[in-house]
């Protein structure tokens, strides 16, 4: 996973991990306090969007387990719910 996420990349296009790193960078920048005031507002907005993106990703923690059904030749044909207990 590369860390080449420019500040212009839309938040929705970032993977969870990239969004995490971007959020961390934004927070660091804001805490250092060396950002111009209007830039810091934009930075905060981006940080908030990144946080939401991360939260959404974490909330979408759905479990769905399926077993692949195979035909006679062993090629996959579909899925069936798997209850492994």
């Amino acid at each position: 996973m590369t860390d080449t996420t420019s500040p212009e990349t839309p938040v929705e296009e970032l993977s969870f991990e990239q969004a995490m790193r971007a959020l961390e960078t934004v927070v660091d920048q804001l805490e250092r306090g060396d950002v111009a005031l209007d830039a810091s507002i934009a930075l905060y907005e981006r940080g908030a969007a990144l946080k939401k993106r991360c939260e959404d990703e974490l909330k979408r923690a759905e479990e769905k387990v399926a077993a692949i059904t195979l035909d006679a030749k062993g090629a996959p044909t579909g899925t069936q719910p798997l209850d492994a207990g």
Partner: protein
Amino acid sequence: MSDLFDDPAPSDRPGQNAPEFTVSEISGEVKRTLEGTFGRIRVKGEVGRVFKARSGHLYYDIKDDRSVLACTTWKGQISSLSVVPEEGLEVVVTGRLTAFGGQSKYNMNVDEVAVAGQGALMALLEKRKKQLESEGLFAPERKKPLPYLPQIIGVVTSPSGAVIRDILHRLRDRFPRKVLVWPVAVQGANCAAEVARAIDGFNQLTPGGALPRPDLIIVARGGGSIEDLWGFNEEIVARAAAGSQIPLISAVGHETDTTLIDFVSDRRAPTPTAAAELAVPVRLELLGWVEQQGARLTRGAGQAVQIRRQRLNDLSRALPKPDTLLETPRQRLDQVSYRLPDALIRGVDRRRLKLSEAAASLRPATLRQLVQGRRDGLKNLSSRLSLRPIEREVARQGDRLTQLAQRMNALQSQRLQQARRGLDATGRQLEILSYKATLDRGYAVVRHGSDVVTRAAGARGADHLRIEFADGEIAVHPDGSDAGAKTVQQSTAQTSAPSKPAARKPKADPGQDDGGQGTLF
């Protein structure tokens, strides 16, 4: 070879003078006998030469130190072999003896091959490891990083049993994800082929399709004996794992069991549970982290405003009030306006003082002193004014004039002498060239007045003539009747120069002339 059926043959047909068999008949009998007598047997030996025909059938030898047994496994049987025979491998083969009439040969049709003993298995494993390692399949740079948070996890394992349960359980604890289970046999003859096919199958799924492609594969199996786990030591499994585009975690057996797939997988988990831990992060921790970052974010943004507000307040406090700003100038104005009237008076006073100081030094004596000074200067200059230098100059110039005059005189006399010498020389020349020289030789010049008479006719008409000789002149009075001299005079009358006859004539009376000449001088 024939020994083998020497024994049964007599028992089938004891003591008869049997009719002849055809070759095919006896071949068929032999085949039947072989198959019927031995039935399904197990033979232990070392695999010799192995040959896989283009038809897909497998031909190989099993041998010990003295004998060789030809073995055949048909194409359809190969996939069910738990071990594919390899040269040098100690195996126990199971199958039936049979004969091939076409070549008068017998062989064994093998439908199962098992490795004979653990030592042999380990040796085989070592051999495969070396082979794959030499191909670079174990290289660390081949290992792919695992996704931080996979969306779909593909699990290759048995759909029933503790392994899948453990994995799902641990996933649920940490971060519930979508899981696709590809059911496979995890031991036995089909294990390797099914596992390899499952790995390939997951890779061939399209991302986001009806059967979505997982972004992480876990190949898992619980613990077992080396024979149980042997499927994961097969080369096809190792090659499928190495060829997987999807990052792959292997979790086969317990921590102490290492199978071939563990060397080529991107990560090896000691247990299936550990594989689930490697696969996903802990969701609650991440949620906590995000919350924490959110709080820091808000605090950071608030701080940015707060710090600037503080700074603004500080700066505003440092900004002075307008009143205080004007106080000092106002005070100065007051002071200055108070001092203004006095200043005028003082200014006049100061100028007056300067005037009186200046006037004090202005006295007649000062002027007189000045005049006296100038006068002295004049006197001084006058005393130095004298005629002597001019006189000296005049004397010097006089001397120079005298010198020049002397030089001029000297030059002049020199030139005069030179001219005289030139004149003398020229005169002498003239003398030489003049008619006077000819007079010495006897010629004479006759003149009437100042004119030279060159013709007798001229002389005849004249009242008096003067005849010039070398040593003087005489005056004669011609009578005009001198006929004797006529012809002589005619012959000499051609030139103005004196002629011989003319000269002879004066010679005739030199005495006459002497007297006249003498009186002249």
